[in-house]
Each structure stands twice: as C-alpha cells, then as structure tokens.
C-alpha cells in the first residue's frame, strides 16, 4: 500500500467507524449534534486562566470513547497533522505574560504558561468532540441532521460533496503515484522534475472525475436537492441523554469540580 492508499483507507475507515452499533451510534443525530455544539461552546467559554476547572470536561470525551468503542489511539493517529497546529496556537503566551500566578512545589508558574495550557486543552477537547461526532454518525445522517436545524441545503450539499471529492482526489493521487512508482522503481517519493506535471495532471483528472460524477448525478434526476437517509426520530431517551449531557456541561462550567474534590481531601 502506498501512502496515498493509506490515506484513502483512513478516510474509508471513518465511514466504517461511523457505521458502528454502539449505544452512542444509536443516539439520534440531531441530539448528538446539539450536544457537541453545546460542549464546544462550554469549552470555549472558559477563561484563559481556568485550567483546573476545564480539566473536568475531559470526562465527556473519555466516557464517549469508552462507550462508543472508538479507540483513543485512532483519534491521535488520524489527527496527527492537525493536532500540533492546534497545540501551537498558544505557544508564545509564556513570553508575553510572565506574571507568576501559582507556585507548584516552590516553582512559580506564570500566567502565560497556564493560558498556553488552557488554549491547548481547549483545542484538543474541541477536536475530540468533533471527531467523536464524526466517528459515531455517518456523514449523510449528519447532513440530514443539519438540514433538520434548517441549515441551508446548498451549504449542506457542499459539505457532503466536499467530503466525497476529497475521496475522489485521493483516489486519483493513489493511482498516479502507483503508476509513477511502477515505472521508477527504487525511487523515494516523486522526483522534483515531475512535480509540475504531476500536480497539473492530478487537478485535471480530479476535475474530470468530479464532472463525470456530477453528470452521473444529473442523469439520475438530481437537482440541488439531496434525499438524505431518513433521520431516525428522536425518542424521549435521546432527548433525556442530550439534556443530561448539557446539564452536566453547565454544572462542570459553573462549579469547579476539580477544586471541590481537592477540597474534600485537604480538609
């Protein structure tokens, strides 16, 4: 398998993960969507020094990973390119904000370090929540849920097709790199001299295929309106789970559970 095929494989793995049958997978999509949005909103609402309070929010992804059977490893592996970028966001805070806020074991920790850690944690938590949503909900069900919330159809279709076209492009790239390596044995990567034509070809080919795919949709009666899989009606159970989760987030947001627990032991 070359690198591209691996990428393709990973993409299709998302589809398969999403087709699982855990209790989380079975929850209704609009509920999951709402919970995820609420979670992200709560995470983002934390003040930049509220690191200890935020730690408690780890509870949600941990529980979800446990129940849904999605492996934590897969999260870190699949997002290995995005994660460092997200982590890098607050990297310079320690240089600007040097005021000592707390001392841990005699060593002073500056506000900059804390706000850096807070930002990093925020990034990771948001990514985790979105990943868990994607890994437990098939893309078209998710799109259907978005439509339920009256997100414009064009936007949702765009999302769905982008997701598909990434697959198309990766597929083309895989075929091309394979053809290249069969005729350039022993070469690592693609020689610089071929990059230009390679990229050009890739674009042309992906565009051709995208056009043919779109034609094939048109030939089968498509006009700006996708028929998504029917959204499973939300039961009172789904509603209860959603409400409880959101209530839990709010609880964790407004009382610092880590501090409370810590207080129990100190006293």
């Amino acid at each position, binding site marked *: 398998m070359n690198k591209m095929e691996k990428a393709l494989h990973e993409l299709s793995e998302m589809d398969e993960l999403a087709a699982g049958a855990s209790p989380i997978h079975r929850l209704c999509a609009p509920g999951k969507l709402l919970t995820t949005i609420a979670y992200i909103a709560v995470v983002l609402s934390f003040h930049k020094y509220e690191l200890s309070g935020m730690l408690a929010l780890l509870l949600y992804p941990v529980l979800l990973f446990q129940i849904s059977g999605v492996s934590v490893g897969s999260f870190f592996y699949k997002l290995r390119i995005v994660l460092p970028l997200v982590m890098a966001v607050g990297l310079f805070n320690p240089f600007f904000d040097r005021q000592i806020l707390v001392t841990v074991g005699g060593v002073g920790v500056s506000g900059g370090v804390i706000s850096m850690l807070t930002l990093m944690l925020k990034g990771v938590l948001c990514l985790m929540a979105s990943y868990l949503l994607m890994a437990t909900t*098939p893309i078209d069900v998710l799109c259907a849920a978005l439509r339920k919330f009256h997100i414009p159809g064009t936007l949702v279709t765009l999302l769905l097709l982008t997701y598909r076209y990434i*697959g198309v492009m990766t597929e083309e790239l895989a075929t091309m790199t394979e053809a290249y390596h069969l005729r350039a044995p022993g070469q690592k990567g693609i020689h610089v001299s071929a990059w230009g034509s390679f990229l050009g070809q890739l674009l042309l080919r992906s565009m051709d295929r995208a056009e*043919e795919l779109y034609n094939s949709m048109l*030939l*089968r009666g498509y006009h700006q309106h996708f028929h998504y*899989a029917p959204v499973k009606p939300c039961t009172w159970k789904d509603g209860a789970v959603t409400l409880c989760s959101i209530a839990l987030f709010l609880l964790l947001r407004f009382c610092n559970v880590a501090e409370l627990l810590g207080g129990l032991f100190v006293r």
Partner: protein
Amino acid sequence: MIEFRNVNFAYEKERPVLRDLSFRIGDGEAVGLIGANGAGKSTVMKLLLGLLFPASGEILVDGAAVGKKSLPEIRRKLGFVLQNSDNQMFMPTVYEDMIFAPLNYGLSREEAEKKVDAALEKLGMRELKHRHNHKISGGEKRMAAIATILAMEPEAVLMDEPSSALDPCNRRRVINIIRELKQTKLITSHDLDMILDTCERVILLDRGQIAADGPAEQILRDRTLLEAHRMELPFCLAGRK
C-alpha cells in the same frame, strides 16, 4: 423513439468527431453501436443525454429535441451505464447509490427500496447491497452500476461497454438481463458476441460516420465489411465462416 438528424460534433474545432450523422431507433428496438476505438460511440451517447451539444443538426427523443429545457424530461426516460463505473457510483454504499435515482424521481423510500431489492435480485447480487463502493472489485462495480440503472426503470437503456470487466458468468447474466429488458436499447461494445446475442440491429461507426446499418446477423457475419473498418468477426462466427 431516438433520432439523430445530420448531427455534427467536434471536441476541438479542427478535429470533427461526428460527421453528418443520421439514424433512427424505434420503440423497443435493440441496437448495437459498434466501431473501432475512437470511432465516436461514447460521444453519440453523451450527445443523446445532453451532456454535450451538437455543433449542428438535431437530436430527438420521443419527438422532443434535446435541449436545455427538455433535458430533465428526456433524462428521466434514459438510463445510462457509463463506460467507467468508477465515475458512476458516488455514494458510499451500493444501496445508497441505487436508491438515489428513484428518490429523486419522487418515490417514497419504501417504494424505492422495493425497486432496489428487485434489481439486486434480478442481477443475483443481493449480498452486495450494503458493501462500500470503493471496496468492491471492478466487475462488481460494473454489476452495481447496471443495477442502479435497472432500479430507475427508464424507458430506454443506454449502455457503454456493459460487459467489460465481467467474468464469463456475470457477462452471461448481464446478457440474459439485457435480452429480457422490454425497453429500447442502445448498446456499444467491442464484445461483438454480446452484441450478436442482445441486438437485432447493428450500426457500424467509423471515424464519426455510419459505415453500415442493418440486421446484426448480416453485418456481424460480413468479414470484409468488418475488416475494412478495423473490426473482426465475433468469436463465435470466426471459426465457421
């Protein structure tokens, strides 16, 4: 039902692909469109479907000229199997791909699902229903592509190389299904034995012009004619003469 009137077409101005092409296909007729590589067979199909438009001339489907306005109605009548099935299947699973057209044409999900199941049954490929499109073999994809069109129940079936990539057993199955179809059929293929089995009439295309048009039995037995246009006798006839 299908008519080409003096159709001219070129992708690039200096290289005409179809030259003054005229023919008629009646309701329920099964026609094989044959010709060497690059003769213009796929182009004829695309013109018919309104994916391309002729430089001059007219194309009629059921008396209506193929044009921007009439397209939705015309496309509703025509089911097309693309030469490359990879470009036909765009949903994640075979099932979702198959149900796409019936839903677009206003069937309820239950009705649509029934059509899908019937088509799968007909092709003997029920076990493929929930497979992922990019994880099935080339031939399976081809069968699935044919199934998507059957589920659509069009008035005419256009097939570009339906038997390519199929194993002998599936090829036979597809041939039998094509023979059973009551619809008007236009089939291009290099598999002349299949054309002989499925079509009563053959149009031989050479460099964008009609070289011969007549009963399949007659044209496909004419060695001199076929060889003059870069073709060969079907295998089943080659030995007998």
